[in-house]
């Protein structure tokens, strides 16, 4: 397969979650979440109860993919940062290590300047964690799915 398998382990997840939790505090944000470039939600923090994070994750990835396509046409590198300003909510989107997307949703309790500053530090930390994760994934190891049988798969579809 072309792409390395995306895998998340408990150890790295906890480290990522810590970064995300802290960013909510430090940036006075409403919500912070991390999505991979294919639209899968990796971690979220803040006021997420009333938020459809699955949909947001997929749309964020679509958005990054679209601007990435625009960048390519302009012979630019990827546009690493995007900012959308609404009446109440603002969204700051940051590409981290060209691999995952860090999204911060904030309102008037915070400011773009503060968010930018905090995102910068969080991105550096996240980049290190994801780099380590990628190395770990490439080490040969047992996939939990090597053991599944055709029957297991069939059973999924027995209504």
């Amino acid at each position, binding site marked *: *397969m*072309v792409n390395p398998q*995306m895998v998340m*382990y408990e150890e790295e997840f906890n480290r990522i979650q810590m970064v995300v939790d802290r960013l909510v505090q430090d940036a006075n944000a409403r919500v912070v979440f991390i999505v991979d470039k*294919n639209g899968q939600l990796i971690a979220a923090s803040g006021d997420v109860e009333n938020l*459809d994070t699955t949909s947001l994750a997929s749309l964020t990835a679509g958005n990054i993919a679209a601007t990435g396509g625009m960048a390519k046409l302009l012979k630019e590198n990827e546009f690493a940062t995007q900012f959308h300003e609404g009446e109440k909510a603002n969204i700051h989107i940051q590409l981290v290590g060209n691999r995952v997307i860090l999204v911060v949703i904030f309102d008037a309790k915070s400011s773009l300047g503060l968010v930018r500053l905090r995102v910068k530090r969080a991105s550096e930390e996240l980049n290190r964690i994801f780099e380590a994760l990628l190395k770990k994934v490439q080490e040969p190891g047992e*996939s939990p*799915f090597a053991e599944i049988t055709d029957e297991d798969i069939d059973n999924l579809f027995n209504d």
Partner: protein
Amino acid sequence: MSFINYMAREINCKIVYYGPGLCGKTTNLQYIYERTNPDAKGKMISLATETERTLFFDFLPLSLGEIRGFKTRFHLYTVPGQVFYDASRKLILKGVDGVVFVADSQIERMEANLESVENLRTNLQEQGYSLDRLPYVIQYNKRDLPNVASVEELRELVNSTHVPEFEACARTGVGVFETLKAIAKLVLTELKRGS
């Protein structure tokens, strides 16, 4: 590229419905959405024009149950079929784990089917994938219409590699879940083989 999350004990896979404009991709997802329990699905998102033509993609997250303690989650996407949306189609293929090609059975759409299946192959190649190595099934849709080509003709045109194929009428749901199950099974089998 499937995503195995040991923390949430989930695996996430991406399936893309491909095919010419108006062949019934969005209708497939709509039917799946309508017939799935609320607890097994998320919201369906359609980025469409005012005339309901798919502009960027449709998106439907589905849970299919557990395997060995891991929840299996599938993200279904459709592409915009019209020729001039090629840049968007390429983006949606990124990270794909399995493809459903929806062919429009109507005789006057044969050329569009052929063009679309060739476009699929080219766009995958550009991303470093090969259609021959990817979980892949074909659906012959709109079998209910009077002016359709025979399955043999369709097969010769778009299924020269003999991947699993299904006749369907997406509007009433015939063949829709058969197609979905087939691609989901192939994707999980691929995962088992180890990627």
